[in-house]
């Protein structure tokens, strides 16, 4: 009963034999993670910038709210999204329950507060002289946004990496909203939960190794882009 060595062997087997079930799960994971991360960044970067840059009434309450949302349990997000998307729920018409885009929506709710909070913090901590300098050079608001975001790009890359890490490893939302349907909405994490439930511990560990390898590849790519950006 050596789950680790058995799991490692099994992981190599899964990868070398291009196991269709494992790759279907990798694919589902990639799709929902890409959807959720893209949506989180698209919404979170501008809003996070606004939150960190502008001084408006209610700003501190908004910040508090965003930081509070970081603690929202994924099972609760899953339940909320299920309640919205169930055929008889308010958004049932959209037909998103038990689909990859539906899972993407749920996972966006997980990633968004991370991007918002970390972007706001990064923008807050950029040098105030940057704003003055850029504005005195005749930049408009849009150019200021890009100048600030570009100055804070490493902090935001960290925000994206953190959000990626949480989204890719999430299981509660994926299970509740996706339904763990074989060949369709079964992600690596829900597959691990299933295999563990079935007593296939070694396969569970093998899939865990596969997930970590996928994450490693993504992180390496990001590091590569970053080195290019610096150079």
């Amino acid at each position, binding site marked *: 009963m050596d789950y680790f060595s058995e799991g490692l062997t099994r992981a190599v087997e899964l990868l070398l034999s291009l196991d269709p079930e494992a790759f279907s799960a990798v694919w589902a994971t990639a799709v929902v993670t890409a959807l959720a991360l893209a949506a989180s960044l698209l919404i979170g970067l501008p809003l996070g910038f606004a939150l960190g840059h502008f001084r408006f009434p209610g700003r501190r309450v908004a910040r508090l709210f965003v930081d509070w949302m970081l603690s929202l349990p994924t099972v609760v997000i899953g339940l909320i999204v299920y309640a919205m998307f169930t055929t008889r729920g308010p958004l049932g018409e959209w037909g998103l329950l038990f689909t990859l885009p539906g899972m993407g929506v749920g996972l966006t709710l997980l990633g968004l507060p991370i991007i918002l909070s970390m972007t706001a913090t990064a923008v807050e901590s950029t040098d105030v002289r940057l704003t003055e300098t850029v504005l005195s050079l005749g930049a408009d608001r849009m150019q200021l946004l890009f100048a600030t975001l570009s100055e804070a790009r490493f902090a935001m890359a960290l925000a994206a990496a953190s959000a990626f890490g949480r989204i890719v490893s999430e299981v509660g939302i994926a299970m509740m909203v996706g339904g763990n349907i074989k060949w369709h909405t079964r992600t690596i994490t829900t597959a691990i939960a299933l295999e563990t439930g079935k*007593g296939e511990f070694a396969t569970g560990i093998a899939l865990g190794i596969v997930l970590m390898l996928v994450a490693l590849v993504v992180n390496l790519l990001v590091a590569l882009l970053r080195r290019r950006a610096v150079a």
Partner: protein
Amino acid sequence: MRKFSLILALAALLAFAGNAAAAESILVGTTTSTADTGLLDYLAPKVLKDTGLDMRWIAVGTGKALEHGKNCDVDILMVHAPGAEKKFIADGNGVSRTEFMFNDFVLVGPAKDPAKIKGKSAADALKTIAAAKASFASRGDDSGTDKLEKGLWKNAGLAPDKDPWYIQVGQGMLVTLRMAAERGAYTITDRGTWIAFEAKEHHSGLVIVSEGDMALRNQYSIILLPPKCSKIKHEAAKKLQAWFVSPVGQKAIADFKVEGKQLFTPNAGRSAAK
């Protein structure tokens, strides 16, 4: 060049994803036992061949499966909790209930049998366990198995809940069995999961201590959902139901074996004597 190959790879992946959606799909709300034992994996290709339906399933506890049905989130239900199913139909959440196969439950416990219940009927065995305060692991997740177990306690005139010897696991059958093995507890399991568990964990220390009682029979039914579920695939659901009760479907169920043992007994048209 690099960009081009990336686009090519993406296109290939998309084509692959598109292919899978050719046959008409049907979403079955079912219980962990039909999925975990591999029965549905075994039947799905046969269903596809005979009916052209691409069977997909959401395997959860019966409680959650019925909730999915109530919300019209699945096309058809395949569950095993007769009491809850009848209420489900009476409440107007389902239109028909067709019994099509059964398996049975067994009472398992430590080989040493500390409460001395070997060979007793289910009700007597539970009474003895409670009297001896021997550890008992319960699913505690409102699944079909959990409902059956609660019913057995009720028939025995007992309702353990906060008793220290009564462990409510709140997870699937295999997890519960494993916990029973680690804690030297008794538990009730469907035979299918038991065979799969025993095949995998030879030295669990658990053995069957009581079986064969009529009260331990586990009847599975197919439930069709009412017209008020306007979005679901009613025709496909009828087709699937027809396949399961047909001689071909019934034979396929009987042919399914795990570790050389038949798990489910088809009984469409012959309702369980209960």
